[in-house]
């Protein structure tokens, strides 16, 4: 007897990776909404604090992460069609760009520290460190996941690893304008 079709069968990839994606989006989504809600109490202070951030650097990091996501998607496609060498190269390049993202983020944090800016300097920076730091931790985890799935090059695992990486990409696409750009 065949199993009844589930509506979740339509989803690309494992259901559990989608549960993880939705959970992470809810956490970051709540953080960003809270950031904008607290901003209502001191819009001028938030704008002044934001001037200490490097928008162009964050814009470059956006290009880095979006390109990394593209390479991860290409790697997943290559794995599905059995082109293992190409898949590994794409996934390794995606992971390397993840490291570039972390290096730029490190420079950004060092620059803030040199200016004497910390978590308690202003509520803006409390959210800034909390949200971007939590995201950076996900980038670091994603780099490890990409390296692991590249080594094994199993289609189902690569698809799950790439989906995690796209979630990290998606979160940054929302973090970038809210924290760095909105005046």
């Amino acid at each position: 007897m065949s199993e009844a079709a589930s509506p979740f069968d339509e989803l690309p990839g494992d259901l559990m990776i989608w549960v993880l994606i939705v959970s992470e989006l809810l956490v970051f989504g709540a953080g960003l909404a809270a950031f904008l809600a607290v901003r209502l109490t001191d819009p001028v202070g938030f704008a002044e604090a934001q001037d200490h951030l490097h928008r162009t650097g964050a814009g470059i990091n956006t290009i880095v992460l979006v390109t990394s996501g593209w390479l991860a998607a290409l790697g997943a496609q290559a794995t599905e069609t059995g082109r293992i060498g190409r898949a590994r190269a794409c996934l390794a390049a995606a992971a390397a760009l993840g490291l570039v993202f972390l290096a730029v983020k490190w420079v950004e944090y060092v620059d803030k520290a040199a200016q004497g800016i910390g978590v308690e300097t202003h509520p803006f920076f409390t959210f800034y460190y909390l949200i971007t730091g939590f995201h950076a931790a996900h980038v670091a985890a994603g780099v490890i996941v990409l390296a692991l799935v590249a080594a094994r090059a199993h289609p189902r695992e690569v698809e799950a690893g790439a989906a995690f990486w796209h979630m990290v990409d998606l979160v940054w696409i929302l973090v970038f304008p809210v924290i760095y750009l909105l005046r």
Partner: protein
Amino acid sequence: MSLNTVTRAWALLLALSAASTGLAVAVTGGHITGAALSATGVAILILAWAKARLILNAYLRLTEAPAFRRGFGLTLALYAALLLALYLAA
């Protein structure tokens, strides 16, 4: 998902990211204020919403699951509207 789909999405994501960064850099320095500044913020949030949809549909392949694409699309639109309301209320 064809190769062209993800590559087209990537090119579009780069263009939209450059546009939002350009808008933000243009208003830095306090030369633009009031309604024009708010309009820039609205444009930046709309660009972010468009980019998020692209990642969901092309990178995460929700185009292959129309019902889930609609559900995620609606939720994302409502969330973007919440962010927009909080931004404009300041």
